[in-house]
């Protein structure tokens, strides 16, 4: 039996650039930054006082009582999933729940719930701890809420692979449909940990930009002045569908999810492999899985987080795995780093780049590294035909995920 094609039929997102996919994509193409100063009192003592915060608060979308029992990461996953579901034309449809699965992960999960409830425990005792604490902080919470909302009965899955989570969740969705376990998978990632503890933890690792006086210029992948990533929050969700199933119901198709490659470094818990070996293997596997000629993969939405080491290692890996022809973009220059949602949001950007024949810009690339030997659409979006494109996502723990999307 031949392997079924898998297509993308719906997109949803809430990000630092906009409360939905359309506004986020418009802002990306215009080269806008979603990074701003943290003006909360708790930020005053932190070494990092900038972040890419949501453009639209969940309270503007979901009602107050519903939000009481949702961690912020769950609320935004639900918002993005509702958008993607409606965008796919599936709202109110009679899709069999036993043919619908969910694959939605988070890098860190319900940390802000854990910390807030610990404050209540310390101040007021155990009886005051919310009975919603566990479903709010459990790492499968976002996937479970999405599954509950949409009536998914073919399995609800929650991948956790740090900053590769969103991409790996989409790769799992591809596997689920190929294996015949579902016709439709709602897949993606979510993250909402703009809180002093995660910020302090990342900054103790010296992983974050401290360009506090110039927030919009702090995320600058491949620029010589980069000094770390900028934490972002948001959710990105795609609806993956067996191509024949989509065709039978006359669904609009954005792109084909042609292939995925997943590897692990077995090298270091946080440092990427010194030659990018695991990343190169992931890209090569994704290309082989997609069965697409390298020359047709003309655009890469890179992982490129604006850290001194990782950005240039990826360039070396792309050279080896793909060649010197692709035009790159680092959309984290605008969105910041959404951790577990990054791979999902950047998959959405990759899909829309193919649809609209445009490479989104990389802002703040004022003084490129001498080793940046691949072409980057710096500052401005670039219009070009894109038959196929690659999205990379790498995560602490040595996770490497590459996804290949192609024109339907």
């Amino acid at each position, binding site marked *: 039996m031949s392997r079924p094609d898998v297509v993308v039929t719906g997109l949803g997102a809430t990000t630092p650039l906009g409360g939905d996919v359309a506004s986020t994509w418009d802002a990306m193409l215009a080269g806008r930054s979603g990074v701003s100063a943290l003006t909360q009192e708790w930020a005053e003592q932190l070494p990092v006082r900038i972040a890419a915060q949501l453009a639209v608060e969940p309270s503007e979308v979901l009602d107050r*009582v519903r939000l*009481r029992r949702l961690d912020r990461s769950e609320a935004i996953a639900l918002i993005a999933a509702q958008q993607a579901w409606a965008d796919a034309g599936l709202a109110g449809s009679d899709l069999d729940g036993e043919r619908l699965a969910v694959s939605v992960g988070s890098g860190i999960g319900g940390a802000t719930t854990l910390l807030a409830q610990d404050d209540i425990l310390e101040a007021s005792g155990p*009886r005051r701890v919310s009975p*919603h604490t566990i479903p709010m902080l459990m790492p499968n919470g976002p996937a479970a809420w999405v599954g509950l909302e949409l009536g998914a009965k073919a399995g609800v899955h929650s991948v956790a692979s740090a900053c590769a989570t969103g991409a790996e969740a989409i790769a799992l969705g591809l596997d689920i449909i190929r294996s015949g376990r579902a016709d439709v998978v709602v897949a993606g990632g979510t993250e909402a940990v703009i809180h002093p503890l995660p910020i302090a933890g990342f900054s103790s690792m010296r992983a974050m930009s401290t360009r506090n006086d110039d927030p919009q210029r702090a995320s600058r992948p491949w620029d010589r002045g980069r000094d770390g990533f900028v934490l972002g929050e948001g959710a990105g969700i795609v609806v993956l569908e067996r191509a024949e199933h989509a065709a039978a119901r006359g669904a609009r198709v954005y792109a084909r999810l042609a292939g995925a490659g997943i590897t692990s470094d077995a090298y270091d818990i946080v440092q990427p492999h010194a030659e990018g070996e695991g990343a190169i293997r992931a890209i090569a596997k994704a290309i082989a899985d997609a069965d697409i000629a390298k020359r047709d993969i003309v655009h890469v939405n890179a992982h490129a987080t604006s850290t001194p080491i990782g950005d240039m290692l990826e360039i070396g890996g792309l050279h080896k795995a793909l060649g010197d022809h692709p035009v790159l973009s680092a959309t984290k220059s605008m969105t910041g780093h959404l951790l577990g949602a990054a791979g999902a949001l950047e998959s959405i950007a990759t899909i829309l780049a193919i649809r609209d024949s445009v490479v989104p810009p990389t802002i703040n690339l004022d003084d490129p590294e001498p080793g940046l030997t691949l072409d980057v659409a710096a500052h401005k979006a670039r219009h070009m035909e894109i038959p196929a494109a690659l999205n990379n996502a790498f995560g602490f723990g040595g996770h490497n995920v590459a996804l290949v999307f192609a024109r339907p």
Partner: protein
Amino acid sequence: MTRDEITTGLAEILEEVAGVNPDDVAEGKSFTDDLDVDSLSMVEVVVAAEEKFGVKIPDNEVQNLKTVGDAVSYIAAQS
């Protein structure tokens, strides 16, 4: 505190915790069947009621509080 005052106080809690319309809250109404309060929200209602009315409602009593009237009677007897 009169029964009406306790009912009004419970209605405020139910609105805050579970989004129940205060106009729907009356002594004859069942928390689960009529007001759609699920088990986790009921825990929140009990803890909030303890705080508001200065009473103790042990977990083994909660199962006996089927209706708003049951809760009002229990709170009235305690306070």
